[in-house]
């Protein structure tokens, strides 16, 4: 099975790109590479996917920490805590904590899951609508209760949900606030909402603060303090692992759910201990650990049951099927799982090795004037909005949504916006679950 390693390495390479550039997630990368991936066999595809899916989680947290720009929506907590640590001159600890946590999280769930391989075929019980609804409610409650102002958090969550319901639902073709506009029927674009309400306000907030964490280079041999700080907070990391793992089974949301629930829980615990301050290392580590544990959990339904739960997996599944390799079901064996498992270990080792030196190169940014750097970031992000929109023939729409929402983002810039963003992300899932549950309960 050593012959699969090159495919994992290629996946790692593309994972670095997908994690680094906001708006270009795993799905978009797979679509771009589609013709080339057709030459892969089923197992080679899995090896490639493991590489890309795991690595994005490592790299996404670096851009979130340094630039306050999430490469993936699962890196949203890192934008808050990681970037705040960076501003305190502790960016190195933020990046190392996220990387070590991600590594530990992946390995712990791998070991635990390996012990339960024969029982994995019962995984579908987890997809009960009741359980899925409980998870979403739990995350929302945690995010609201861990906020400094719960009333504002509730209002923001409601606004996020309302924004998330704009458009036409595929489940019943019902449309809300579309005003006969074809663009609005497709809903508000995620990239415009996240950048206008979450990222831009943070960058604008920092406009008059001139800082660059020049201690971010952690590749020069001073590893012990980083390991020690992580070890001192290993409880947060393990909590994130367990919680993030189970949340990772959520269809369509997976790692986003994992990082947010782990973050919400840890932040709530830290507040209870009266230890929470913005730039909280345990909350960051918990979110990033949960993120990677969720990334592994997300793979399980695909490889065990043959059921893809996120769009990128659906594409992978179809690619593998077209090569005659049907994932899951009768083809799933303990031997197959062990092949996947060793690739995951290799991927995580490589991603860890990449994530640390990667920070060193980002450190070179300190040579650029901070205001110029911020301006470049804002321009690049605007270009991302236009570019991602152009992929759907919606550049103007993406830009318009961004411009319309930006004043709201600036207005609320002093508040914690995660409840709003999270509610926006889960709005359609909430609607779907509400419809299924009302039918099940004959309401």
């Amino acid at each position, binding site marked *: 099975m050593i012959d699969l390693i090159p495919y994992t390495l290629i996946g790692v390479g593309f994972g670095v790109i997908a994690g680094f550039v906001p708006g270009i997630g795993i*799905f978009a990368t797979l*679509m771009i590479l*589609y*013709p080339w991936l*057709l030459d892969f066999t089923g197992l080679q595809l899995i090896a490639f996917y493991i590489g890309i899916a795991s690595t994005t989680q490592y790299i996404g947290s670096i851009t979130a920490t340094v630039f306050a720009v999430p490469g993936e929506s699962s890196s949203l907590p890192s934008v808050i805590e990681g970037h705040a640590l960076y501003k305190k001159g502790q960016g190195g600890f933020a990046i190392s904590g996220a990387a070590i946590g991600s590594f530990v999280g992946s390995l712990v769930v791998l070991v635990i899951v390996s012990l339960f391989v024969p029982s994995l075929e019962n995984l*579908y*019980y*987890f*997809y*009960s*609508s*009741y359980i899925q609804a409980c998870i979403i409610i739990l995350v929302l409650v945690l995010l609201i209760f861990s906020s400094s102002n719960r009333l504002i958090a509730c209002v923001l969550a409601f606004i996020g949900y309302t924004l998330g319901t704009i458009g*036409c639902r*595929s*489940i*019943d*073709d019902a449309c809300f606030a579309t005003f006969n506009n*074809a*663009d609005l*029927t*497709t*809903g508000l674009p995620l990239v415009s909402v996240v950048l206008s309400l979450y990222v831009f306000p943070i960058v604008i907030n920092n406009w008059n603060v001139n800082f660059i964490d020049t201690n971010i280079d952690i590749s020069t041999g001073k590893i012990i303090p980083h390991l020690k700080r992580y070890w001192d907070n290993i409880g947060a990391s393990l909590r994130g692992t367990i919680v993030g793992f189970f949340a990772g089974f959520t*269809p369509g949301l997976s790692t986003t759910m994992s990082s947010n629930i782990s973050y919400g829980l840890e932040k709530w615990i830290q507040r209870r201990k009266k230890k929470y301050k913005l730039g909280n290392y345990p909350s960051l580590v918990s979110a990033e650990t949960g993120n990677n544990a969720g990334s592994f959990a997300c793979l399980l339904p695909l490889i065990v*049951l*043959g*059921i*893809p*739960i*996120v*769009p990128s*997996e*659906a*594409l992978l599944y*179809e690619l593998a*099927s*077209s*090569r*005659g390799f*049907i994932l*899951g*079901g*009768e083809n799933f064996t303990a031997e197959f799982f062990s092949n996947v498992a060793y690739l995951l270990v290799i991927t995580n080792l490589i991603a860890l090795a990449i994530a640390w030196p990667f920070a060193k190169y980002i450190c070179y940014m300190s040579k650029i004037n901070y205001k110029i750097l911020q301006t470049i970031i804002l321009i690049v992000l605007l270009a991302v909005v236009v570019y991602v929109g152009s*992929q*759907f*023939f*919606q550049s103007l729409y993406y830009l318009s949504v961004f411009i319309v929402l930006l004043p709201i983002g600036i207005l609320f810039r002093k508040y914690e916006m995660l409840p709003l963003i999270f509610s926006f992300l889960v709005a359609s899932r909430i609607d*779907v679950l509400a*419809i*299924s549950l009302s*039918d*099940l309960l*004959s309401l």
Partner: protein
Amino acid sequence: MKKLILSVIAALMLATIPSVATAKEKLYIINSGSTNGTFNAILSAYASDLKTMYDVEYVQAKGCSKASVILKKIKKAKAFYISQGIKAATSDKCSASAFQPTQDKIIASDIKFGMIFGRIGDKGISDLKKGGNKIAYNTNPNKDWLAKLDRSLGVTNTHVKYKNSTGVMLAVLNGEVDLGFINSTKKVWQQKGKLVGLLSLNPEGDNGVPPLNGVANFNGAEKGQVDNFFVQGFSKSELIKFRKIIANLHKTDSTVGLWYKKAVGYVNTATWSRQDAIKAAKDYVNVWRD
């Protein structure tokens, strides 16, 4: 140094000449469905094969309304797109002429027959006849269809709606519901170790699954569905030529050919005569209009 520069220029010129000579025509491939559904999988396969002949640009339209607007924006360019026949007949958003099966734009259709299925060793046809079951489904027309089935059998069942066929399948697998009803049976066949087809809407049955009209007979008991493949911006002769290209892809081990070989429960009309394909598309759309 001069030599090196001249060599580079010469190499660039040589590289450019053939690319100009063989410049490909632009073809937009537009997915009007979701990114994680079967439409995306099929069109991605087509895009991969057609790339050797066209300069393909793949567009995710995220629904009929947006697809319709995009098609208007690029009305002079060549486009290849897909749409659900049942939506063209029943949904206001998909009623635009671009989605109606007329001979100036239809290329082929996928004909598919829905299926009622359950868990192996669990509820079966006799339970369905008794009523009192929870049955999962995933589209608005299927709800009406299930209501007709209940009336025909004279029983009452609880109908539970899910977002997509994956949701229906998971609900049956985890025991949240007793039975499921989906239009694309591919997923059920891929879970044949755990799930079993009980009744098919195909009047001839489907791979050993008996036809529904043997148990209940009502208007719609044999209603199949079509997903239609259309083109825009093609003259009549270009359309016929393009249809031949598509038919060849289905006959060979192309990416599309392999996809259909592995997908149980789909009948594609690309290799049929053009008249038969147009008739099938029209018939299967019109049957849902009442």
